[in-house]
């Protein structure tokens, strides 16, 4: 059966701390690097230990030849462990998984709004957008300056809640502000649920808006039914790992602070 999902033993090339508790790890993972599309993710697991037990989900941040780069915030035991892995240590990557952002066409204007670990998707979207001749603009919000990171070669407009860098306010306020001058064809957003909810509320009726959601996942590939995202039409749930993690903002209801 032909497949475009792979289970690869990937070795760590290097890990760098790029912002407060925030890391980039580069893996050698040729099959996944070749196949992944913006907004898709991998499930990462640690071989030879039962702690952590389940794989962890990470959006692919960037690919470079054979390499897959992940961007993550060390929030718990999986991410902390990952951040300490040394050159040549191995993890298992399962991917690329899920439905990512829609493909862009030449000349299309897309605004990409990210926050927190959602910034992971910026580089891969930007490079795909550039490849297809679209015209991307990046917006990146955080509470304060030291949580932000500057990706190479990407022009980013920053926003901080405390005004310590860029726009003083949330990334959504920044987008609204920019809307006075211009308007994108599409909005892509990735970040914490409250930010996504705010993007959804503000823009879904005006602009084609796509949001990438985070829900707890056990498998990432449709085996467990563990990752429901409520359909707005009331007919039940999508699965974040197969139908998403990227959804048209109009079709889903975000959990009301429940998760």
């Amino acid at each position, binding site marked *: *059966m032909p497949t475009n999902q792979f289970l690869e033993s990937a070795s760590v090339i290097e890990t760098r701390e790029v912002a407060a508790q925030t890391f980039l790890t580069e893996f050698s993972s040729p099959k996944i690097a070749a196949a992944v599309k913006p907004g898709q993710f991998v499930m990462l697991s640690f071989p030879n230990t039962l702690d952590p037990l389940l794989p962890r989900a990470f959006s692919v941040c960037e690919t470079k030849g054979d390499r897959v780069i992940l961007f993550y915030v060390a929030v718990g035991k999986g991410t902390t462990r990952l951040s300490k892995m040394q050159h040549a240590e191995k993890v298992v990557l399962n991917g690329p998984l899920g439905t990512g952002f829609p493909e862009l066409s030449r000349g299309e204007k897309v605004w990409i709004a990210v926050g927190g670990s959602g910034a992971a998707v910026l580089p891969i979207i930007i490079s795909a957008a550039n490849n297809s001749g679209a015209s991307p603009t990046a917006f990146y919000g955080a509470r304060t300056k030291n949580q932000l990171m500057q990706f190479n070669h990407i022009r980013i407009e920053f926003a901080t809640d405390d005004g310590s860098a860029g726009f003083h306010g949330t990334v959504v306020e920044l987008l609204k502000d920019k809307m006075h001058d211009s308007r994108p064809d599409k909005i892509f957003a990735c970040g914490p649920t409250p930010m996504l909810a705010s993007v959804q509320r503000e823009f879904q009726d005006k602009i084609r808006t796509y949001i990438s959601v985070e829900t*707890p996942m056990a*498998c990432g590939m449709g*085996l*467990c039914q*563990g990752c429901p995202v409520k359909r707005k039409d009331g007919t*039940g749930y999508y699965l974040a790992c197969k139908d998403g993690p990227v959804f048209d903002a109009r079709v889903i209801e975000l959990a009301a602070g429940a998760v």
Partner: protein
Amino acid sequence: MKTNLRVRIGNLELKNPLMTASGTSGYGDELGDYFDVSTLGAIVSKSLTLKPKIGNEPPRVTEVACGMLNSIGLANIGVERFISEKLSKLKGSGATIIANIAAKRAEDYLSLAEMLSDRADIQGLEINLSCPNVKEGGIEFGSDPKMLGTITRLARNAFPRTLLVKLTPNVTRISELAKAAEGEGADGVTVANTYVGMAIDIYKRAPKIHTITGGLSGPAIKPLTMAKVYEVRKSVNIPIVASGGVFTWQDVIEYLIAGASAVEIGTVLFAKPNVPEELLIGIENYLSSSNLENISELIASLRTGIDRAPTH
């Protein structure tokens, strides 16, 4: 040395003792991306209900020490769509198929068994009476030997091929349930479903699973289910299918020695969807290095030797 891995449950001969566990491999569609599902002893479907179910509100899963809690709420496409949309594809992949069914009324089990009995490509039926998440359809039937017996009898009369009854472990004496299943004609018992567990987010002071409690699976439960397989082995004569915390080939061997004829693999698939490949290799190597030609020599081969009862 060529080893023989075949095991028999009722009239069904499995090519080896590895089965997937219900609810951990969908309808078998996705696993085909990672390995050849025809190499499995059998694939067990997600629990099927008469009508489709959307399942519980999120969060439905959370990790705990060496395990996970889930409360999926039997989300599934319903038996009819399973038959019309999934079965022939699954059959095409060469898999041996066991349908797992769940319901909240005894007569629904009967209807489900009847619907599935017509389809010869469904080689076995596993009755889920033990899902701890769904009040009436799960724990209530499964923890009462009488109700369990009634439903087993209904399904037995309707379904002519291999019939497995999956037991709940959340009871004082699981062997009484096993005896009830055996008494009403089950070909085997699956020992066991998940254990009622709970986890709390200490910052929100809220349960980590929407339904407050969920079912614990994974390596954490393996010693518990091992003890239950051993208990059941001593009290019934029908084959046992072990289900609980299998992650390595050593775990499979351990269950066989304790008394299981086959083993279901569940949670491990989430981290290692291709794990059956390495399990099969491990089992074969173990058998040949132990000079066992036939896997049946291993089953229930625990050496308890001298009287090991506590001494005082």
